[in-house]
């Protein structure tokens, strides 16, 4: 058997690791571990020079295994696997030890963190010895795409893909396309008409032969894998099956219901309305109170349901600018009205947005700041002498004074929150939710539209609150990703699958019903189980269920994991009593 020759690389990650872990000492000490041929520390292993270092060493020292001890493998495992590939080594002859997220960033004692780093590396070194070369597998890519959600994000993605001549199935749960934009009048900051934007797009969709639209439609279930998904949809009770290679989830958002904020008493004040209701009013062309009068005093309360631990911790991102847009629309419709903003911070980061803020500030609009975390404004019924319907009480933060503001109409800038069926749909398509119930992208910075399920993308506000340009950008980014894959014609599928050793399998069939993907079947003639490697997603559950040890979970073999355990628990690396 070929001699095992391991290269070990300990990353500083600038100061991220080096500050808490003595990386030089680690690299030096681990050099004496069995089979370690070179052991080096380097500032940034993931940088081009860092990767080149590995490639050079592989060639120079004839390495056949590589361990990089750096950040989480969820971030850079693929980067380093590619480096191995570039050096002519099988990418699976690689293992990472996570000494950043699981060590330097979470511990405070340098000596302990350094010792822990050594244990994690010892585990990785032990494990990598048992790694085996795995060969890439590809399957044909079905060029059709399923898009779930017919709002601006779904529409943009659909057009992008269909304009390239590829099939799109566009599923919408309501009875029309357009989503929330259908209810919007003008858009900030340039006051373009939402209807003028969305209507032509809907027309184009409806007339594009490559787009099949399914309104009033729900997804029943979904099976398959990247390149070859299939689903059952139900449209008005009728079921239909669709096959496609990629999925875009563009299910959008819903508005926060302000009923739960007692001091706003939305349920009882007829003229306390949400931004959604006000938008409809603008679209209808008339700003009127419930009594049918033009309001004299209009207050806009920001961050309703956002940025507060009792409701949602996050910022809904679009409400500040929408509120400014309202000021402009109110000012032109009702030139003599008094406009007040009860706001927490003004967030005006988008293109043209700060300019909108400056412009609006010059239009006789009063901004009153309140403490969003601890001291929300209160809406009270005014007395007759106040000559208005309501009063808003708030402690103005900048002046430090308590202020009362007259109001005939109060607009609550309600938060965006995830749709109520987000969880169910997420489970169907294999996308997890973050703590705020929005879908989690594969990587928050480097892979913002893909998800951990290959072939499934999340775009628009179902991923986090977004404005129109961001939603459209994401939608088109996902479309571009999909078109690239379609263009390539094939996709790589999971290679770390389970495999049955027919010499050992006794045909007990314990594994067959364990598989969530029905990837295992029983071959009666041979009396053995057989894994369909295209369907297998490599969870390894069958390997753990197999009583005979006949199923091997590639890249997560018993031997690899047991060796890692041994390494992690090497006696010399135990924590000392203090």
């Amino acid at each position: 058997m070929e001699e095992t020759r391991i290269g070990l690389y300990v990353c500083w990650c600038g100061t991220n690791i080096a500050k808490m872990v003595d990386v030089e000492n680690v690299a030096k000490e681990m050099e004496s571990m069995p089979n370690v041929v070179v052991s080096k520390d380097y500032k940034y292993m993931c940088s081009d020079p860092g990767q080149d270092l590995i490639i050079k060493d592989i060639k120079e020292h004839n390495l056949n295994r590589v361990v990089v001890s750096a950040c989480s493998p969820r971030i850079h495992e693929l980067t380093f696997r590619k480096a191995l590939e570039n050096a002519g080594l099988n990418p699976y002859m690689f293992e990472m030890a996570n000494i950043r997220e699981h060590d330097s960033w979470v511990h405070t004692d340098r000596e302990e963190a350094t010792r822990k780093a050594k244990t994690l590396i010892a585990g990785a070194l032990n494990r990598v010895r048992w790694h085996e070369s795995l060969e890439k597998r590809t399957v044909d890519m079905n060029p059709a795409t399923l898009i779930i959600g017919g709002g601006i994000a779904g529409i943009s993605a659909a057009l992008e893909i269909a304009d390239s001549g590829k099939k799109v199935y566009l599923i919408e749960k309501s009875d029309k396309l357009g989503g929330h934009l259908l209810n919007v009048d003008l858009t900030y900051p340039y006051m373009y008409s939402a209807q003028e934007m969305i209507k032509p797009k809907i027309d184009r969709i409806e007339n594009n032969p490559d787009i099949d639209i399914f309104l009033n439609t729900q997804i029943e279930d979904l099976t398959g894998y990247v390149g070859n998904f299939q689903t059952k949809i139900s449209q008005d009770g009728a079921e239909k099956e669709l096959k496609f290679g990629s999925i875009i989830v563009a299910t959008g958002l819903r508005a926060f219901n302000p009923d739960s904020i007692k001091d706003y008493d939305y349920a009882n004040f007829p003229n306390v309305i949400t931004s959604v209701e006000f938008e409809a009013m603008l679209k209808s062309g008339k700003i009127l109170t419930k009594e049918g009068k033009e309001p004299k005093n209009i207050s806009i309360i920001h961050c309703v349901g956002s940025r507060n631990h009792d409701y949602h911790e996050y910022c809904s991102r679009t409400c500040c600018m929408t509120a400014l847009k309202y000021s402009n629309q109110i000012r032109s419709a009702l030139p003599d009205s008094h406009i007040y903003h009860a706001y927490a911070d003004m967030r005006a980061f988008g293109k043209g947005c700060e300019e909108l803020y400056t412009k609006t500030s010059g239009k006789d609009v009063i901004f009153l700041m309140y403490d969003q975390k601890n001291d929300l404004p209160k809406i009270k019924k005014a007395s007759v002498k106040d000559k208005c319907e309501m009063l808003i009480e708030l402690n103005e933060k900048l002046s430090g004074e308590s202020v009362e503001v007259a109001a005939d109409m109060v607009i609550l800038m309600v938060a965006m929150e995830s749709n109520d069926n987000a969880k169910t749909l997420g489970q169907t398509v294999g996308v997890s939710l973050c703590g705020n119930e929005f879908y989690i992208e594969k990587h928050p910075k480097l892979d913002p539209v893909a998800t951990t399920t290959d072939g499934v993308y999340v775009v628009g506000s179902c991923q986090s609150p977004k404005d129109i340009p961001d939603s459209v950008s994401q939608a088109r980014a996902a479309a571009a990703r999909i078109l690239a894959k379609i263009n390539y014609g094939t996709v790589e599928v999971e290679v770390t699958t389970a495999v049955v050793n027919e010499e050992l399998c006794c045909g007990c069939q314990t594994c067959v019903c364990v598989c969530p993907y029905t990837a295992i079947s029983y071959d009666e003639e041979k009396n053995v189980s057989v894994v369909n490697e295209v369907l297998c997603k490599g969870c390894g559950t069958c390997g753990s269920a197999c009583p005979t040890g006949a199923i091997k979970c590639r890249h997560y073999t018993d031997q690899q994991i047991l060796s890692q355990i041994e390494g992690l628990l090497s006696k010399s690396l135990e924590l000392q009593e203090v």
Partner: protein
Amino acid sequence: MSFQPTIVSFLCNWCSYTGADLAGTSRMKYASNIRIIRVMCSGRIEPTFVLKAFREGADGVLICGCHPGDCHYHEGNYKCLRRFHLLQKYIKQMGMDEDRLQLKWISASEGKQFAELADSFTEEIRNLGPCKVKEVMETLT
């Protein structure tokens, strides 16, 4: 003065390992006794691995997977749950405190919960004292 337990933790890639990563990116601090092994799914975790960890000197073993219903592979965490119950019963019979082995659900967004769990589990094992499996094993060889 105080006993420093050694803890091995098996985390599923999609939820719990990501949750532990989040604890890191959020710079939360927790006890350094815990050593993490990544598996794709908690359904991959076998009794053999857990017993091996105890034999090699772990004082506690913490298994984490996706919350029920959230498993990336649909139901691997339920398989893990079933094995966990039987395994706890077995290690108890073998003279070990069954709480040396625990199974908790940590989602990808629960970095804080993971950090707290790492601390509380470490403390619990510290109170239980050293696990004697490895020591006994050394007297046998």
